[in-house]
């Protein structure tokens, strides 16, 4: 495994309690890494279960949960984005299931996915201000919502 991924800039590698491998990749080569995992014959990651985000006050952490039917194995890819200017590449051209997850993360955390075709708010109304799952979200100030005409 290690010799296979040596060409990518891997920052950290650990195993969770359930035995799932968690790999932290640098932001610049993460798209290449995922497409490599999808296309390589060794780890054929054909399912993207979910994309999750977490605000760890230093950065916004994105977790991609991949699954390989061939090996019957899970893999978690972690990318760290800058908190002040969160930008990341989209994976919708590789996995179509990522479209809604990325829209939700854009809504809740304000992460901008470059190359996403329809990056609009999913759960909150379009007129709402702020991203509610960020740690510095002010509930009292940003809660007031104006309703739109287009239902």
């Amino acid at each position, binding site marked *: 495994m290690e010799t296979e991924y040596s060409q990518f800039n891997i920052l950290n590698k650990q195993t969770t309690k359930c035995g799932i491998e968690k790999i932290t990749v640098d932001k610049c080569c993460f798209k290449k890494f995922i497409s490599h995992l999808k296309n390589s014959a060794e780890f054929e990651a054909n399912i993207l279960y979910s994309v999750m985000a977490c605000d760890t006050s230093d950065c916004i952490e994105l977790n991609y949960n991949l699954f390989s039917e061939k090996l019957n194995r899970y893999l978690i890819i972690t990318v760290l984005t800058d908190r002040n200017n969160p930008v990341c590449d989209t994976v919708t051209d590789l996995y179509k299931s990522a479209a809604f997850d990325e829209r939700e993360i854009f809504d809740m955390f304000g992460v901008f996915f470059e190359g996403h075709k329809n990056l609009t708010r999913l759960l909150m109304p379009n007129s709402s201000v702020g991203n*509610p799952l960020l740690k510095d979200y002010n509930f009292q100030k940003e809660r007031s919502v104006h309703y739109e005409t287009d239902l």
Partner: protein
Amino acid sequence: MSILLKPIDTIYNWARANSLTPLIFAASCCSSEILSLSAYDNNNIICFDNDVTLGNPRNADLLIVAGAITHKNAPVLLRLYEQMPEQKYVIAMGSCACSGGVFRHNSYTVLGGADKIIPVDIYLTGCPPEPRALQKAISKLKDKIMAETISMRTKYLDSHTTDFVLSENQEILNSVNKQREE
């Protein structure tokens, strides 16, 4: 005057109170209690007639708001309320529709109660209220209808208009967009 109106009121109110046509706004889990009510109240003694078609705001007089109202759902509820013909009544069913319930504090999606956008006649608490409680709420509403008079109709109409207007003008949306850019 009131002596002349008394028999008219009685007949008019009796006809309206016993032919309530509901529109069920099923936002979340409380709406499953309405389904169990239809099994419970199989003779339709207390509640509405099940033969009438449900889910049509143009024919309905009673709006049952069942469940938590989110900010995204609120304009839909308001539009449905506006589509109903006059002399309309609203039951807020469940704690979420009454006051926001467990989602009241520091929630970014849930509105604190349906009465923030539409006027509510009967508040029915419970999480969720059981079918018998809904029966009692409807019978209370019938008592309320029976107490009305035609001469007080303007007073009724004033109390049943919504304060909230769907923002027709673009100014509010523009101000929000400016805030977002800053």
